[in-house]
């Protein structure tokens, strides 16, 4: 990629941590991100031709410890809320850690609850889904038509969706990684596409460097971003860190969704990234799903984060 010396001055960078509990409408206009609390602005575009879809993440079915003794119940409660979302979501994206321990019973439960929504759903694995046989059981069940490494892409409603795997073959001391074969596939997949087509990229571990001391980043994520940068609208949806975090860099917007199971601490604010112990009354404000809206002709996708409890 040619080096653009005035890139840093042109590039607007917003780096903000947005705490769960503040349901947030997130829009971009003219390169300036704006956010407002749900209820103080129209929460969703009502344009009938808009594509709207849901991001769910980190359901960790099987988790049963503090602060959430029943991760299945909170997952179900969040999915139940989707039945009243209007207009009905066109699809759902699960950004990984479907299960807690890669057990068939955990995946069975998740799959059954997702199927009950009747919403077409696409998955990427988290590291908790890769504990058995390098993730083969996960891919066979949740991404049977994916490439051999588990990655895939598809088009819907004018948007090109790309599902990338960054939880395979994690190396000691390392972060998430995509690997040369997947990057080569991505380059091929994007080759020839119009830069005006909106892209949505999903990976489990954040594709950007959130907090390397906890491994919250993807070591070769920058190489993927180099391939994505020519597109006018790129939305990267991640999970893994169980909290809302957003960042906009040039045309690329990064968003990590809430878990439906348990919250994790903000980077560096606790001795480890283990589950945050919050009292039961507060838990449901820290779990949630995100709705994403794409309206043709608008350069940005709007993301509305919806906590389970008010």
């Amino acid at each position: 990629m040619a080096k653009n010396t005035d890139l840093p001055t042109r590039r607007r960078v917003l780096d903000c941590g947005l705490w769960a509990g503040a349901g947030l409408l997130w829009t971009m206009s003219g390169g300036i991100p704006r956010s407002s609390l749900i209820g103080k602005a129209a929460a969703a575009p009502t344009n009938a031709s808009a594509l709207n879809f849901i991001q769910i993440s980190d359901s960790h079915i099987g988790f049963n410890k503090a602060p959430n003794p029943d991760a299945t119940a909170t997952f179900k409660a969040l999915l139940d809320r989707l039945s009243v979302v209007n207009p009905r979501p066109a699809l759902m994206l699960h950004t990984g850690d479907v299960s807690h321990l890669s057990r068939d019973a955990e995946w069975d439960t998740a799959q059954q609850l997702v199927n009950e929504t009747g919403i077409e759903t696409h998955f990427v694995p988290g590291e908790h889904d890769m504990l058995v046989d390098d993730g083969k059981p996960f891919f066979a069940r949740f991404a049977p038509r994916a490439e051999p490494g588990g990655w895939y892409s598809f088009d819907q409603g004018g948007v090109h969706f790309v599902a990338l795997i960054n939880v395979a073959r994690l190396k000691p001391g390392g972060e998430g990684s995509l690997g040369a074969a997947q990057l080569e596939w991505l380059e091929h997949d994007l080759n020839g596409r119009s830069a005006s087509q909106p892209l949505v990229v999903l990976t489990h571990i954040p594709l950007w460097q959130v907090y390397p001391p906890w491994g919250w980043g993807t070591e070769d994520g920058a190489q993927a971003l180099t391939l994505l940068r020519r597109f006018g609208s790129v939305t990267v949806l991640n999970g893994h860190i169980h909290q809302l975090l957003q960042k906009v860099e040039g045309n690329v917007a990064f968003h990590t969704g809430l878990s439906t199971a348990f919250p994790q601490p903000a980077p560096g604010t606790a001795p480890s990234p283990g589950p945050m112990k919050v009292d039961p009354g507060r838990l449901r404000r820290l779990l949630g799903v995100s709705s994403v809206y794409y309206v043709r002709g608008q350069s940005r996708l709007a993301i509305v984060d919806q906590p389970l409890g008010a």
Partner: protein
Amino acid sequence: MRPIALSTDAVALMMLGLVTSGALFTAPKAGAAGPASEATVTIDNFTFTPQTLKVSAGTRVIWINRDDIPHTIVSSSGPRAFKSPPLDTDERFSMRFDQRGEYRYFCSIHPMMTATIVVQ
């Protein structure tokens, strides 16, 4: 108590190719008097303690996960010399180190977690 220690033991030994008839229950090798020596590595706050454990050959090393999140114990070498199943809270994994050497390992779920067993 669930028989998790025994079953993970068996997995580790099979992966090492050390399972010979009765190997799980035989007495320690000659030279190690009395009961087999044991050493423990605990996992708290996404950290193996001690970071470097020095043991003599023939010692059984036991890992105990005291976190409320699962962890694994996976050899850093390739091909992997050992790999535990995921250990949930309070579950254990153990294996005996008979050969001298330095054994680096990590948690394949949280790869920032690394540590070493030195067998003297």
